[in-house]
């Protein structure tokens, strides 16, 4: 039983950041803008979030500090993503190129600033956010140890974001307009929707969520930020495509990947797996191979937004 608890707890650490960032990517891509810059935006969000914690941890600690840092991460991610929005919406630039530029810019900028300010590029922080047990909820049998022990508040924020994102994109007027802009912007424009504004909103939401995701990835897994999110932005992109740009499927994909990742990193606590003569590296490959195989069988009818990646030009209506 303890093994099951441990696996679920670990899965959260891997799956939640992927989930948040992939949902962010969904907002951008469903509005019609390819956002390959998720990795770079995560780095930016992680940098400013951790930087904020680093500066203020002498004055406060615990969940309030983390919540404020998440806000900082969201704002910095949102602002950074404006560069992508401006290039791909106003200037009708190639969105892959613009995104790649942001991916390249973020780590270089972060290393540059960190080393200029403090000599080394790693930013240390004290983990005062870990919760051994959530009060009351942690005492519930089965559910408590499963979800409310050895946890971070970011897990619940991530799940909350998933629910809100699902409602916003599927049930609200804004969500409908966003989807329209990604499927048929000309039609959306003809009924008076400002395609540019909606796409801006989509990209900035994706930036804010990717910024949060950057911080959420670092806090449970490390105590210093080394200008990198270990390719999680690209994995989130994979989760987004794997999840067919749909909220429910993205949630499933993120948790699938999280569980696979957990087996890769924690297989040694599972007695059956530990005795098998398989090297760590093989387990590390499993999530990626499994994704490939599943994609090979499930991609025939890709549900990518139709206008994705195509700059909208009012004149071409």
């Amino acid at each position, binding site marked *: 039983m303890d093994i099951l608890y441990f696996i679920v707890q670990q899965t959260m650490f891997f799956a939640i950041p992927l989930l948040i960032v992939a949902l962010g990517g969904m907002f951008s891509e469903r509005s019609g803008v390819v956002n390959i810059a998720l990795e770079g935006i995560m780095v930016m969000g992680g940098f400013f979030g951790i930087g904020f914690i680093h500066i203020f941890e002498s004055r406060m600690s615990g969940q309030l500090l983390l919540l404020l840092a998440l806000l900082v991460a969201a704002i910095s991610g949102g602002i950074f993503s404006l560069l992508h929005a401006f290039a791909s919406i106003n200037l009708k630039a190639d969105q892959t*190129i613009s995104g*790649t530029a942001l991916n*390249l*810019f973020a780590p270089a900028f972060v290393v*540059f600033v960190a080393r200029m300010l403090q000599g080394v590029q790693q930013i240390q922080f004290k983990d005062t956010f870990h919760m051994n047990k959530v009060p009351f909820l942690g005492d519930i049998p089965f559910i408590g140890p499963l979800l409310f022990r050895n946890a971070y508040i970011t897990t619940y924020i991530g799940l909350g974001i998933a629910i809100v994102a699902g409602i916003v994109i599927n049930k609200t007027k804004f969500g409908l307009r966003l989807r329209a802009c990604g499927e048929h912007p000309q039609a959306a424009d003809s009924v008076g929707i400002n395609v540019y504004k909606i796409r801006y909103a989509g990209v900035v939401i994706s930036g804010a969520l990717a910024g949060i995701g950057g911080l959420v990835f670092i806090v449970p897994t490390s105590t210093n930020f080394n200008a990198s999110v270990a390719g999680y932005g*690209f994995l989130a992109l994979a989760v987004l495509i794997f999840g067919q740009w749909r909220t429910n499927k993205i949630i499933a994909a993120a948790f699938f990947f999280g569980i696979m990742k957990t087996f890769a990193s924690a297989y040694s606590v599972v007695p059956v797996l530990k005795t098998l003569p398989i090297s760590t590296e093989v387990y590390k490959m499993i999530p*990626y191979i499994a994704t*490939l195989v599943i994609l090979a*069988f499930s991609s025939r009818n890709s549900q990518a937004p139709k206008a994705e990646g195509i700059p909208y030009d009012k004149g071409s209506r």
Partner: protein
Amino acid sequence: MKKRKFMLSKGGKDFIASIIAIAAGLLIGLIILLFSNSKQAFPAFGMILKGGFTDGLVGIAQVFYLSTPIILTGLSVGFAFKTGLFNIGSSGQFTCGAFAAVYIGVKWTFLPGEIHWVVALIGALIAGALWGMVPGILKAVANVNEVITSIMMNYIGMYLVNILIVKYVYDPIKSQSVPVAKTAIIPKAGLDKLFQSNNINISIFIAILAVIVIYIVLNKTTFGFELKACGLSPDASRYAGINAKRNIILSMTIAGALSGLGGGLLYLAGSGKYMQVLDVLAPQGFNGISVALLGMSNPIGILFAGLFIGHITVGGNNIQLYDFVPEIVDIIIATIIYFGAFALLIKSIIGKIRRKPSETAPVKEEK
């Protein structure tokens, strides 16, 4: 009016757009330098511009050394771009190629000395090709987005190569791959004496040869025309009877081969670089994206873009003398690429300035 004709030609506009992007990138770099340390900013900036020319021939040798692998990964990404595919998997193809080269270089000592390094490079080419072929097949047969499969193949390649290094060519004391046999090192052909540097060999010429071959394939052959047609309009090319599926597979395979060759060239250079067992994707693959974008996917452009990035990387390393961080170069490259994304806008502005108003027509974009 020859000059004006050049300005209006596609190549001319690409060239001017690139120059504007490069100027913008350098300007942002200068501004950041000024912000962080205004006194040393100008000398440091000068050093970046001087780049590989700072240390005479040794510096130029260093530029060639850094440029060679990224010209090939750039060529790989650019070639795939031309056919409408985004090869973000250059990193994995590069690593697999590198491992094949090192493996053959270490183990296949039964080969005669003259052809040992050639076989090792061919091995790199094949390993990269196989790695690139997988996303191609999945795209063609099962309609899987090549971006995501390439990313997955990057990680699978990295972990697989880590396993293989430890299993076959590992030096546990130095925790890296064992050195390849002398016969597997790419010949220096006297260049080391000429440039006074151990980092140079004939691999820069192999890279140039690859550029020429890809240029000819893309621009002078029916096959290249078909590939580009598929990239521009998959539906139209299918209507014209072009086998799009076959071309997707071939395109990704060739792209993979180029990246793999890049890996082979780097690790057979005999310059003291060994394969490490780390969970880090090879950065050359991602630099290849920069090179391809900067070179506008044109093989000749990619050659110069690779040399340019090598050049300012050397300059960036030199500015540590002034207490600056070399990452400034990455910021400059990122800015250049960001502005390069506006190429369409810049080109249409050039078009508007250069044409008489009556001639104004929408500028057609070729991706």
